[in-house]
């Protein structure tokens, strides 16, 4: 079995077996604690620039299938797991997970002590790293890890965004004859979705609730968006630091009050900046599918899917303009707010799930209601 190495900027070196492409990639090393949904994680563009550690020790068991992709290709830079399955077993699988990553040049290190790695990052915070299935000198890799740019200040959203606008009309397809998926509602609203690295399940969910979606590049101006005569504008998730996204923030600021706005994840952070808030980097982020979030309006707890390294500082928001609607019960970080004067709201977590629980699908309905009331 060929070997692979994950080297961190602080000098730690973790060795294991190579299970993916014979390649070397670098990025910020982060961990995700979700038990299911590795394929959705691989293909979530928000992971651009990141090497992902999965805490579930058994990865690859059910292979991959075309329907569960969140974008056209895997976006993770590299993958570190405890054990990668040598076979695939699932009725929907059409490719081995290993082959899927290999084809896209993504290196995988397996058989390493992922728990030790996670505890290391939990204590010291996320850091830069290099995953190599070609270089066997750990010291060299540590040196390379120190050379790569840090995540802070990096505009990754524009890099992963679509180059051209496109229409989206695909609804959610049931994964089994027993999955209850209501037929999509008649498309009554036209939503323009900013692609900062959008997950396809967001698009599918928008179609489900009766939206016709036009996806536009990250740097499309507010005026061009308004020219499309949207009933609402959606701000997508995406990778990296929100702070350098000045153009995007200023576009959103110009949209506020002119059309209903709904943001998820990076979209939430951009909206936060647009209303005058501040963002900061979390020590090791939130990545998983089990975070309890309280909806302060209904006083109900939702179990939610997360993937973010930055957050909006709730103290930076002007409470005269903004109402906090959602808070994280684990660490009291801000999870969602709405504008008191404009039809705009957003959440930090992922109501579209994929992977994760479906507790928060209602937010898409809320967006539709908001568009309906502004109509």
């Amino acid at each position, binding site marked *: 079995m060929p070997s692979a190495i994950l080297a961190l900027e602080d000098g730690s070196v973790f060795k294991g077996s190579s299970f993916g492409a014979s390649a070397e990639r670098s990025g910020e090393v982060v961990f995700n604690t979700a038990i299911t949904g590795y394929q959705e994680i691989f293909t979530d563009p928000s992971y651009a620039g990141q090497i992902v550690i999965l805490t579930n020790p058994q990865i690859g068991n*059910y292979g991959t299938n075309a329907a569960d992709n969140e974008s056209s290709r895997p976006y993770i830079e590299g993958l570190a797991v405890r054990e990668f399955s040598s076979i695939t077993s699932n009725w929907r699988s059409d490719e081995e997970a290993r082959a899927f990553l290999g084809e896209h040049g993504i290196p995988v290190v397996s058989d390493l002590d992922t728990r030790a790695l996670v505890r290391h990052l939990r204590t010291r915070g996320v850091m830069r790293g290099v995953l190599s299935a070609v270089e066997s000198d750990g010291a060299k890799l540590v040196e390379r890890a120190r050379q790569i740019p840090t995540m802070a200040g990096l505009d990754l959203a524009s890099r992963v965004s679509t180059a051209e606008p496109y229409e989206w009309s695909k609804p959610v397809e049931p994964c089994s004859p027993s999955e209850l998926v209501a037929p999509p509602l008649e498309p009554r609203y036209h939503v323009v979705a900013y692609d900062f690295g959008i997950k396809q399940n967001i698009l599918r969910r928008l179609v489900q609730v009766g939206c016709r979606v036009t996806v536009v590049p990250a740097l499309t101006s507010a005026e061009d968006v308004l020219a499309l005569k949207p009933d609402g504008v959606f701000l997508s998730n995406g990778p990296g630091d929100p702070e350098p996204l000045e153009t995007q923030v200023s576009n959103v600021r110009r949209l506020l009050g002119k059309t209903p706005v709904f943001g998820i994840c990076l979209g939430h952070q951009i909206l936060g900046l647009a209303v005058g808030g501040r963002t900061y980097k979390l020590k090791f982020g939130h990545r998983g599918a089990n975070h309890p979030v309280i909806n302060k309006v209904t006083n109900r707890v939702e179990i939610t899917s997360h993937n973010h390294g930055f957050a909006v500082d709730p103290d930076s928001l002007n409470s005269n303009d903004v109402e906090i609607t959602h808070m994280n019960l684990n660490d009291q970080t801000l999870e969602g707010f709405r504008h008191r004067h404009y039809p705009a709201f957003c959440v930090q977590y992922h109501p579209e799930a994929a992977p994760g629980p479906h507790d928060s699908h209602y937010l898409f309905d809320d967006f539709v209601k908001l568009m309906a009331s502004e109509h």
Partner: protein
Amino acid sequence: MPRRNDLHRILIIGSGPIVIGQACEFDYSGTQAAKALRGDGYEVVLVNSNPATIMTDPNLADRTYIEPLTRPYLEEIIRRERPDALLSTVGGQTGLNLSVDLAEAGVLDQYGVELIGAKIDAIKKAEDRLLFKDAMRKIGLETPRSKLVKTEAEALEFAERIGYPCILRPSFTLGGTGGGIAYNREDLVEIIERGLALSPVHEVLIEESVLGWKEFELEVMRDLADNVIIICSIENFDPMGVHTGDSITVAPAQTLTDREYQMMRDGAIRCLREIGVDTGGSNVQFAIDPKTGRMVIIEMNPRVSRSSALASKATGFPIAKIAAKLAVGYRLDEIRNDITRKTPACFEPTIDYVVVKIPKWQFEKFPGADPTLGTQMKSVGEVMAIGRTFKQALWKGLRSLETGKAFGSEKLDKSLIPQKLITPTPDRLNYIRFAFESGYTADEIHEMTAIDPWFLRQIEEVIRLQGELQKESLDTVSKDTLVSAKRFGISDAQLARTWGTAELTVREKRKALGVVAVFNRVDTCSAEFESFTPYLYSSYESVSEADPTDRKKVMILGSGPNRIGQGIEFDYCCCHASFALQELDCESIMVNCNPETVSTDYDTSDRLYFEPLTLEHVLNICDTEKPDGLIVQFGGQTPLTLALPLKRQGVPIIGTDPENIDLAEDRKLFGKLLDDLGIPAPENGSATSAEEACAIARRIGYPVLVRPSYVLGGRAMVIAYDEETVREYMREAVSFSQERPVLIDRFLEDATEVDVDALSDGDDVLIAGIMEHIEEAGVHSGDSSCVLPAQSIPRRQLDTIEDYTVRLAKALHVIGLMNVQYAIQNGTVYVLEVNPRASRTVPYVSKATGVPLPKIAVGLMLGKHIRDFTDATGVLPVLQDFVKSPVFPFNKFPGVDPALGPEMRSTGEVMGVGANFGEAFAKAQISAGTPLPDTGTVFISVNDHHKPEAADVARRFAALGFKLVATRGTAASLRAAGLTCKTVFKVNEGRPNAVDLLKAGAIQLAVYTTAGAPAFFDEKAIRRSAVMHRVPCITTLSGARAAAEAMAARKRDPIRVWSLQEIHAREKATA
């Protein structure tokens, strides 16, 4: 929505005796609930009939009733206690059914008791199969096609429509009792008859087969604000068709994509909402067609279940404790996660390891029972193992089972492979491994077992590595290969066998190469947050998280999986040992692998190691913890077998020296000790030939007890009344050799057997209890009812027993607990056996006397004296009558002879408390599920030498108004004694015979004794039908006498109950 302040006193109902399908997982849930509610300031009244439980410890509730779990007794308790609420969801199916019964009978309304946890409508909707199916259809969840039938004809008609095989499930029975899979018409007819008889409502569900589908369970919790979380997903290794209690199960689910898992999660949550479980934990089972992904819901339990105990241990999320808090109004987000301290309990645990549960079966105890696994649960216990990967966990789990055989050393037959793979039995996993070794492909094995290819691949990978290891030797093996082997879960012992060396030699080499076990934490969050509870499992990762302290610490070895003869009693002892250590300011470290127990709750001990109880694993923990002492005397046989090997490795064992524990087991050495002390034992000898055996028997006189020196299988012992039987036994019954001679003891006929538990500190000895057995000697002490205080033993003999016990304790230098078994015949007291360790009766004696024996024993082991704990000397006083009675699993094993004998077969026990013996015995029989009748007919058939006494007993039945029927010989002797009695045929004589009468419901009590020789067809048939038709069947005369007294008491005494606390207060006052 915080704590409800309108409730003050809450009643908790336990689950009764340990039976197949309902074991100590409900002691765990009841204990957690009682602790949680009391911790919150509620007054807790607890009732359970099982004295071996930790939940019935008087410290855990404000008032504890060990009383029958039936409506009349519960009503009396409710009348006395006037609780505000009844928590229905932590006492298993028994607690739930009883709650429904009390509600429907109007008792709860009459006394203003609110049902909390699950309301009556929700319980009925979940439990009634038709209502459940309707409810599921309403919310768009499919169920297998099915129909409830009440007759055979209806069953046949529906089966023709859906096709064979089909599944049969009797309504309202535990663990699927009486159910089965019918592959054809004949099967159906057989199962439907049994099922209709066993179902209390005489109703059976026939269901479309989903055999071979993937099976999953989700553990769900909901609070009053409708917040819902999933605690754990579980995937069954064995596909549909094998009861989940008999399946190997794996957490978390391994072969579902997120889409499929979320579909199941959504379904489970909709199910809980529709059924209307207000608060607490529920368990929802699903099946998925591996070819199409079609999903059906199988069932849901609106209560804490076996799987919730497993899920709690698998994730570190204490389901029963949280369920209790939710029932009194808390919201999930108002409760803290104990393990992380910072985060709330409102989240879904995520785990970075794999958990495997493996059931433990004991078919060897039940010759004649069918070992095929189906919809009726047959296992008696289970083990859980935690590993970083499935492979590691599976192999650890196999070691935890203590099969007595090393994995891989079983005798397997190649020609049986297809059969053993197709028909699930306890052997199936061994045969899967064997099939791989024999060249079968994973596809072929999947074809025959329908086990998911992913699981099979994991096994194949280990087998492949084992093949590679065979090419190595201890000298050539590289560090990397050794690491791989350990990471795959392969034991040192197995490596030693592969390389023809000793286990400890492998261990040395391994440590020399730096391949050492580390310990990881179970933390509910995959390391995302820091954990504050040392709940640990071993692995071969890079960093250890054990962080041992430098406090004074003592390690307790638990008792492993439940099995017949070693169950919850020992968990009681281990938990108390742990509590005592903490009180004595000593860190307690628990090692055990049984997920059902209180001892494996992370907050029972200061530190918990969830590990197999094998030399390798215990030594690894000792290397890390370096304990000041190790306790082996509380966990039954399991830790005792490790005592000497551990001592040789320098582990400091505290309490009685293992050498002395061993001495008591060694026939020669122990015989010499008794001679030296001048204490009589039954005459005995050992033989290696039939001639020798007959000579010994002649010398010591008939009858004799003949047995092999190692107990094997079921027919281990025989009581021989003549030479012919001895010859036959030597010829046919057992194999023997120079090393394993046959042991022959004089059988003390009609002797009274006595069990004694005592404490010793090396100087003083305190006799905790002298228990008189109700069945005569010859019935295994664990299968005999017994009573405290002794009823019929004269003072002089009690003094002799006391004297012998004290001298034996001193001679064996006992520090801690000791149990002695005596037999009294014709005024002479004989010692049968001495066990210098905690016995099965310790919890029973502790509850009868109010003196916590294990707690004192721990003190003694730490160097304290008996007088430091109590002023009592001599024998502890007992103020009321306490009868302990066994509970048998015969209704699970049709075809097995239920006669009592020298081989223990009971799975659990109950206790009856009375103001007199009859009352206590009557209550114990009610609790054991074999209530004695108030009126009707008694059937009597006894062997010749019991006939004179039989007349005495029969007279008492007659005096209570019972009619008598008897077989010819017995009838003649009863009439000779002046009694009126009908004659009935024996089974082989003609009809109508006793079996016909039983079937017709014309007999309410059967008394049938056997001489202990191999039972006749006739006797077996009668006893079997008695079990089938729920007629109490007594197989000893002393038992019959006790029954007569109990029946008299039922006529005489009112329904009355006592709490342990009030009894103990009186005992203290008089002491």
